[in-house]
């Protein structure tokens, strides 16, 4: 019996899930940096 499909679906989905989480971590990091910049801009306006 060919089990390639089940192995690919398991390992592929795991790799994809980890890649998505890493991309979300990078996006969250960028968002927090942006919030700090906005805070600095507000402070500069004051």
């Amino acid at each position, binding site marked *: *019996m060919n*089990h*390639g499909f*089940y*192995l690919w*679906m*398991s*390992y592929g*989905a*795991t790799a994809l*899930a*980890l890649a998505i*989480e*890493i991309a*979300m*971590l990078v996006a*969250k*990091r960028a*968002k*927090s*940096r942006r*919030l*700090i910049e906005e*805070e*600095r801009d507000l*402070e500069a306006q004051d």
Partner: protein
Amino acid sequence: MNWFYLSSPSTFYRFAGWLTPWFFALAALLTAAGLYYGFIVAPTDAQQGEVYRVIFIHVPAAWMSMFLYFVMAAYAAASLTFNTRLAAMMARAVAPTGALFTFVALWTGAFWGRPTWGTYWAWDARMTSELVLLFLYFGFIALANAFDDPRRGDRAAALLALIGLVNLPIIYFSVHWWNTLHQGSTVKLTGTSMHVAMLTAMLLMVFAFWMYAIGAALTRVRSIILERERRTRWVRAL
């Protein structure tokens, strides 16, 4: 070492930043070693054939899903008991990674179950309680983000995390308490019947996932710290 020194968000932010690349590097190395052992060294299983190699990610993911929930609940308890900001932030940081590993455990279990049991899914106690764990993670994340005041969100989510702890022994002992399709534990503290190469591959992947989870949680908590502390002088000075 003075551990209370690290409970300050500003100190922990720098400490986590120093540690994070090491954890990710270790995770990459251990994953490479685990995949090498899992696909090259470990022999084909006499009964299941090649599909048994799914266990090299399924079992570590399932263990991490429960372990991370326990860690999240411990941080939640610390935040409720001592009212520490960092503990609440750590609980929030652990939750998405815990949910990810729970999803991976369920998904890979389905793709292992189809060729071996003949079905992707059965409403047996182990699988259903693991699905409940995924919903608990989702509930924690949703509740934590449901309030304008993040500290209120922290408290509400912490309570849910503590209530959900009851699900962990249910997951672990479900295969003993009920007659389940899911088999019992193969790896026990008293020993295992697994081939040494299979066990090595699985343990390497356990440590790889562990290192990854720490790296991901530390990366996430750094972003949470920046968002929460963005009005403080030390963040603006970064």
